[in-house]
């Protein structure tokens, strides 16, 4: 208790330093939690994929459910020989996975990961509760292509280069409709703060209020994540493994892992923007964590839907992807913007 009071006193006296320390601690906790959850996500994907395809998925390592499979994979990848090809652009090659993971982690800082109820008041779990966090997340999502680009460029391999090209072209095409969708949501919620946006969905989800925006954002998000119908950057059958063809060992592990972290964060963003975040009826007995339960249920549904889409759609060609982005999604997202403004004004 004494410690607690000392901390509050310190916080009152030195808010800036207190904020810095708390921010660092929260960031450290966040990074480790995200890594663990992303690892579980890889496992979940392999299991769900197995279920959808009439097979089992990993079930030998670590008990019946194969939960330690990812541990084995990680140990193997981390102790594998680390090859840097002779013709590679060494500095860029070394920095690419780091940049990829760092840009991903930047998103995590601004995303609320649910909320808890203390004294009848919702306290969102967010490291940096910025006023413009929606725009910030959207901006940092567009940095994702740079890590992939660096990896593809530096590998000195024409297939990697093609993967990098495709990644950048795709990113340019889809960043615009995605941004317009985020702005439409912000117009309806009268705020760019993700917590405020979630609060604005107390009565009606934005997925219902603007279904067009939800669909467009979902498609653009899958594209940004580079998942199945849009995984041209690492199309195994066309360009070997795309931008990470030449990567081995721990560097490949980072790139591989980064995709799943992005998938997790992207799904969280979708839940926050369109599916009402942690809003839901309060469950009486465990009211303390009832928002968390709602949040994770929605998140799980989105993740499983992403995996489902992955196993059931063939891949687009890259020119069809950019066509879809520029010619269909962009006009439709503008239509959705007008709709959002009109509805927002009507109900305001």
């Amino acid at each position, binding site marked *: 208790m004494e410690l607690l009071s000392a901390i509050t006193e310190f916080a009152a006296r030195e808010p800036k330093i207190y904020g810095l320390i708390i921010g660092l601690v929260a960031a450290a906790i966040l990074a480790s939690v995200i890594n663990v959850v992303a690892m579980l996500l890889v496992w979940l994907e392999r299991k769900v994929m197995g279920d959808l*395809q009439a097979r089992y998925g990993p079930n030998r390592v670590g008990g019946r459910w194969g939960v330690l499979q990812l541990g084995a994979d990680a140990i193997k990848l981390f102790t594998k020989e680390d090859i840097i090809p002779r013709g590679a652009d060494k500095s860029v090659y070394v920095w690419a996975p780091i940049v990829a993971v760092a840009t991903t982690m930047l998103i995590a800082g601004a995303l609320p990961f649910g909320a808890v109820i203390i004294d009848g008041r919702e306290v969102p779990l967010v490291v940096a509760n910025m006023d413009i966090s929606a725009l910030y997340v959207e901006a940092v999502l567009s940095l994702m292509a740079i890590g992939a680009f660096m990896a593809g460029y530096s590998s000195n391999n024409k297939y990697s280069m093609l993967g990098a090209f495709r990644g950048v072209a795709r990113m340019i095409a889809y960043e615009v409709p995605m941004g317009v969708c985020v702005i439409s949501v912000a117009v309806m919620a009268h705020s760019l703060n993700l917590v405020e946006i979630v609060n604005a969905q107390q009565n009606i989800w934005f997925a219902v209020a603007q279904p067009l925006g939800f669909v467009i954002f979902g498609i653009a998000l899958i594209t940004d994540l580079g998942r199945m119908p849009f995984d041209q950057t690492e*199309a195994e059958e*066309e*360009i070997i493994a795309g931008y990470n063809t030449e990567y081995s060992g721990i560097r490949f592990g980072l790139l591989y892992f980064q995709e799943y972290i992005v998938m997790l964060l992207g799904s969280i963003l979708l839940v926050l923007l369109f599916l009402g975040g942690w809003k839901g009826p309060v469950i009486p007995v465990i009211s303390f964590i009832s928002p968390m339960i709602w949040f994770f249920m929605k998140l799980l549904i989105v993740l499983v839907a992403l995996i489902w889409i992955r196993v059931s*759609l*063939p*891949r687009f060609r890259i020119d069809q992807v950019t066509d879809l982005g520029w010619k269909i999604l962009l006009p439709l997202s503008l239509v959705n913007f007008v709709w959002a403004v009109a509805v927002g004004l009507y109900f305001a």
Partner: protein
Amino acid sequence: MERLLGIEPPERAQYIRIITQELSRIQSHLLGTAEFLTLIASAVYSPFLYMIIDREDVLTCIESVTGARINHSFVRFGGVRNDLPDGFKDMTLDTLKMVREKTKDYKELFLSDSIYRRRMEGIGVLSPAEAKRLGVSGPPLRASDTPYDMRREDPYLLYKDLDFDVITRKEGDSKARVEVRLDEIIESCYIIEQCLDQIPSGPIMAEGIPKKIKPEPGEAYYRVEDHRGEMGFFVASDGTDKPVKVKARGPVYAYFQALPPLLEGVYIADVVAIAGSMDACTSEVDR
């Protein structure tokens, strides 16, 4: 070789040969389509895995007759090695019913999948004249509006007694090639059902075949409709127990000849759609 020896295998043996051949045509087409799906989608694309499941059932039928899954050295000079096992008819009919329904499902799936159609329609169009010039045969040729099937052109075994259609498509693009293959699965099911109805009882080996075969000097050429197209065998004998020359003409070599004109100036993503829809088995070219 039998043509060289002048042996006619008994009727039952011929029917068994037709049944196994059509069954392996079904499994080959299923595998070819499945492999092609991994190329335009990815290795985790579910229909690919479902097709492999169906193929396993068909393979079980083949295995119950021949004892091997893929390389069944089953045909003997003048007949076949084994008779059909007990309960083969029921098992095969069940499997065929399942395969036919599943294949119809796949066709429906591909028709309704707009991504698939965008990827496949009008890609790698092979005109009939061009296809004939390049020596392509089998499903890719039939997809180019040319009803050319060895079972009809030069009926071997007892195919002239059986009722079946030669599947053709007008478009000649990748989508047509895959559709021809799926339709042929259904047609093969029909052929096998007829065979199972008509099959007579009797011996499975011709009489009087010597242990050591010494054919008269001469040559023989025999062509059959393989899963992938026209397959020709040439044997030349000089009267001893070893042939002077054996030459097999596989269909896939011609597919690869057809690829360069098709692949000129297309996207990399289309390369897999075109080459995959040919169902080219690379190791067949190698010999």
